[in-house]
């Protein structure tokens, strides 16, 4: 949400050109995410997961509320990145924005892969996910890694919001469904940073569109959650992750 709204703000209100507005929006969103982590998450690092879940919910409500105060409740349209003329490819019409979405998503996926598997920081973060204590014993600063992960995910969330905004409009209220479905996709694919999560997202997206066509579009939103429940009941570790979920 912040991605889309901030880009609008920078581009339209402050008359900054679109590419710079996008970059600024990403930076500010990242800053917000990082600030939240510093202020609200890291002081409570030892609390139960429930508490942390509640805090993040509180944080999201707060950010939404501030956005509403700043920009009101209206919906806005972000201009398409390269015009609104549909392109015809092999008999099918595609909006150019879709190509942008596809392309940028691909770049992000590849960047992720590179970052988490081939860079020191990325590997350190994965280590923390596996075993916090061991990681700190080998010299990884876990606090920094947590901070970093918040920053990175805020940035990516902002990008997602920006590339979608021209198509689906944006307001202070968007992003919740998207974020929740993203979470579903992560759990469905398996909480790793590899192809699994990406595949999860693809599966959810495709099944949702298919469902919208076959059943009614009203139930479309439910599809992601139904799949989520099924996966959690049958194979909680996700479709693409090996191994057992803990028993005791």
């Amino acid at each position, binding site marked *: 949400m912040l991605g889309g709204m901030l880009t609008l703000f920078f581009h339209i209100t402050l008359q900054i050109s679109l590419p710079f507005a996008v970059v600024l929006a990403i930076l500010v969103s990242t800053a917000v995410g990082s600030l939240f982590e510093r202020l609200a998450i890291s002081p409570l690092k030892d609390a139960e997961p*429930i508490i942390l879940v509640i805090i993040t919910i509180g944080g999201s409500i*707060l950010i939404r509320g501030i956005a509403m105060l700043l920009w009101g409740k209206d919906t806005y349209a972000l201009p398409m990145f390269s015009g609104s003329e549909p392109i015809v490819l092999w008999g099918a019409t595609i909006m150019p924005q879709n190509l942008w979405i596809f392309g940028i998503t691909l770049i992000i996926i590849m960047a992720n892969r590179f970052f988490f598997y081939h860079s020191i920081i990325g590997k350190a973060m994965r280590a923390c996910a596996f075993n916090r204590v061991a990681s700190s014993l080998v010299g990884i600063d876990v606090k920094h890694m947590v901070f970093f992960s918040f920053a990175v995910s805020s940035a990516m969330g902002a990008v997602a919001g920006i590339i979608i905004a021209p198509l689906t409009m944006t307001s202070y209220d968007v992003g919740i469904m998207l974020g929740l479905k993203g979470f579903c996709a992560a759990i469905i694919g398996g909480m790793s940073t590899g192809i699994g999560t990406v595949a999860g997202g693809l599966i959810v997206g495709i099944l949702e569109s298919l469902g919208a066509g076959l059943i009614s579009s009203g139930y479309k939103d439910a599809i992601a959650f139904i799949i989520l429940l099924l996966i959690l009941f049958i194979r909680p570790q996700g479709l693409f992750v090996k191994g057992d979920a803990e028993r*005791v």
Partner: protein
Amino acid sequence: MRKEYDACDGYMKKEMLKFFIFAAVIIIAPVFIKGGYLMNVLIFVGIYTILAVALNLLLGLAGQISLGQAAFFGLGAYLSGVLTATYTVNPWLSMVIAFVTVGAIAFIIGFPILKLRGHYLAMATLGMGIIVYIIFNETVDLTGGPSGLSGIPHLTIGGMIFDSDLKSYYLVWFFTIVVILLSVNLASSRIGRALRAIHDSEVAARIMGVNARLLKVEIFACSGMFSALAGSLYAHTVTFISPTSFGFNVSIELLTMVIVGGLGSIYGSFLGAAILTLLPEFFRTFQDYDIIVYGITLIVITMFMPGGLVRGVPLMVMSVYNKWRPPSGPSRQGG
């Protein structure tokens, strides 16, 4: 051992006293309120208190997070509403049907859901809540969809219809008091201890013979049934229901109420429900700000007053009192 006997009976007496004072205040309150808008709001405080207490049993006592309580609230409301408005079933009977049906649903779905922990459980209950909400919206023929369901009859006893604010107040609060009594009893009993044991260390609880799996599902069903009761009462009091009253936002509000009041404290849930229902009314002009207040409140209370107001306020008072009180005993004279 003598000491333990006395402590036990003393504790019980204290609990009973607290309860009777609370009930008495509730019963006498209307005399001072002289009806009107405030009375109307207090009815809702009663309904949300039931919901908050139900969530507290699950979250505060057993430690199982649920972000989908609104689903049971809504199921109770819609079952009652549809049965009475569309099928002209007797309202009391439909309330019982709703109560039992939602209990059964919660029991069945509880088994797979409560195998999960932490954020997985949170997501699953969230998903459940959203799916139910979408069903309310989409089954237009049955529920009226987004435009809602109207024409739900009031409850009646003999010739008396519960249609005025005063009568509805006593109707709703009767059930609220019953739910509070049952919950307080439950919390201080063998079952309450077993639930808290599961919360603190499920492994150790199982070693002691607590059937954690079954008990978690049972309390989940219990919580669902109380929520459904609140839903039925809501339907018969406002006579019109629509899906927006049972969405994700409501689940979050309930969560906030429980946290603010104090996890694990039944009276705290009342406090949380009261504050979060009354405060927005006082700040009507700042209606839009309530969403920010929720967010800040959640964060601040969770960070600085983890026990909720019920524990935090006395602690705060104590620490202020200790700072201001002149030191007793011989005072240190320099080095």
